[in-house]
């Protein structure tokens, strides 16, 4: 996802003089192609994230379209008041780009995990929140961020993820993407965890459970209609996110369903309300937290058993 972002950004910078690329001392060698395409419009501000975001805001006030890049918590939490006041309150067209969304930085530990970024960014007025699923969607989301009028948070995973969405999938800002149709349960996903969600849907299918799969490449504005319709059809909803169960996709889904008066029960698969102190790779931590395909299947089956106890008796 990371390389896809840099390719898309270099392309944008080549074609539009307003595009700037800023970094907080991260992205070794990755800015060189942009510097070539857009000489003088790349700047490493140093390890200084408040400055990173403030400088990006100033560039935006001066008519530029800056992309500010760092590790996800260091572009959302570390400079949060600059994000809130200089960017969001000003409705400035700054794109904040966080690499290592969720648990991508696995063994580097909780300072490097981004498990609250979606929640805190979603809570900010004016902020658009994008969490694409795969490299191809990162390219589309980067162009959507460029085209957006106001501030955007773009959450990236790591590098080298496979493409999961169909090749002809389009990216419409504010629209969920439906990947599968099934009547038994709705699996709702955001960001790079989609591969695990699709794998879970396959495992469920093998057990006779047909899942609808919805992917939210845009978490905010939230496409309430899509999940309300899917819940009406399936009667049960499981949200899956590489994020705290508080404030992110699970919350947005529950809010939308509750406000629509939908009766469907919701289970949130995500990081419980605790920092992840277990040590290990991303895959290890996902399995540990029940966020891999097996964990998603287990939560889903437990929900369905609760819902329709008679069914399991058959």
């Amino acid at each position, binding site marked *: 996802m990371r390389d896809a972002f840099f390719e898309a950004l270099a392309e944008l910078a080549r074609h539009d003089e307003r595009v700037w690329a800023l970094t907080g001392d991260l992205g070794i060698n990755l800015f060189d192609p942009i510097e070539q395409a857009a000489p003088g419009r790349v700047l490493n501000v140093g*390890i200084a994230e*408040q400055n990173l975001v403030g400088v990006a805001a100033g560039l935006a006030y001066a008519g530029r379209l800056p992309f500010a890049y760092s590790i996800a918590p260091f572009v959302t939490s*570390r400079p949060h008041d600059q994000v809130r006041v200089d960017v969001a309150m000003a409705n400035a067209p700054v794109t904040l780009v966080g690499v290592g969304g969720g648990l991508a930085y696995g*063994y*580097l530990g*909780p300072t490097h995990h981004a498990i609250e970024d979606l929640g805190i960014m979603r809570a900010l007025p004016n902020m658009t929140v994008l969490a694409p699923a795969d490299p191809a969607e990162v390219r589309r989301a980067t162009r959507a961020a460029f085209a957006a009028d106001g501030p955007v948070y773009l959450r990236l995973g790591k590098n080298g993820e496979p493409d999961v969405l169909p090749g002809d999938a389009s990216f419409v800002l504010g629209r969920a993407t439906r990947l599968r149709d099934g009547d038994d349960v709705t699996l709702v996903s955001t960001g790079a965890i989609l591969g695990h969600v699709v794998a879970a849907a396959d495992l469920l299918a093998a057990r006779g459970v047909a899942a609808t799969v919805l992917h939210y490449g845009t978490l905010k504005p939230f496409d309430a209609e899509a999940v309300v319709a899917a819940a009406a059809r399936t009667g049960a909803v499981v949200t899956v996110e590489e994020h705290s169960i508080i404030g992110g996709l699970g919350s947005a889904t529950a809010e939308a369903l509750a406000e629509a008066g939908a009766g469907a029960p919701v289970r949130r698969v995500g990081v419980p309300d605790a920092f992840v102190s277990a*040590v290990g790779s991303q895959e290890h931590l996902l399995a540990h937290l029940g966020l891999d395909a097996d964990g998603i299947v287990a939560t889903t089956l437990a929900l369905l058993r609760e819902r329709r106890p008679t069914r399991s008796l058959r």
Partner: protein
Amino acid sequence: MSALSAQRAEAARRTVLDAALAAGTCHIGSALSIVDVLAVLYADVLPRAGAEPHRFLLSKGHAATALYATLAAAGVMDAGEVVAGYCADGGHLAGHPERGVPGVEMTGGSLGHGPAIAVGTALADRHAAAGRRTFCLVGDGELNEGSVWEAIALAGHLGLGDLTLVVDANGLQGLGPTADVVDLEPLLPKLSSFGWDAREVGGHDHDALASALGAPGSDRPVAVVARTTKGHGISFMENELMWHYKSLKAADRPRIEAELAAREGVA
């Protein structure tokens, strides 16, 4: 130099490399940069007869293996457990130190946090007339963080003589030489102008480190600018930016062993 610090530094260097080899992780140059500083601190400076040791805060948390290895050399951790548990699936030591792990005072990993915390502990100890000093180690790239200078300004203003900031001045940060990113030199006059007793020292010279670190400031906080070499001790890593990122593979074991053996010959 103290024989103890020299011997512990060699032991710690080995543990750093063994852990990096076992886990296949990065930030090796950053850790080797501070092995000598930490060896001197833990052998000769932090211990206090009949009292709790002085405090140490590792702000540049990405050098975690240097801290774990030093704690192992000091008997607080077990070297074998460090190598086995560091960044392993289901292990007990993450890539950055977390408060709560024995011997670890602060959670590191997000740069720029240590100096303010150090002002807090130094204030508490001064208030309690505990005679206890606080040492905080930051990277020279980390000095880019505004929060570091907020703490420097406050400590200077408060005249916190029991606070010592050690700058690991290896001249390199994430994307290049510190001089090319945000040049903060000359550092000594900057720190002095904030009311600090600023000292400069060779960062791998144990005697010089011991005397610069050993003497508290009277009514001014002390800044020790340690001129270090990133990757110190392993020739092919020294001053090489990419050893911030690269990891060791099993195939690297022989050349690491050769370098360590050559060091033993010298020591």
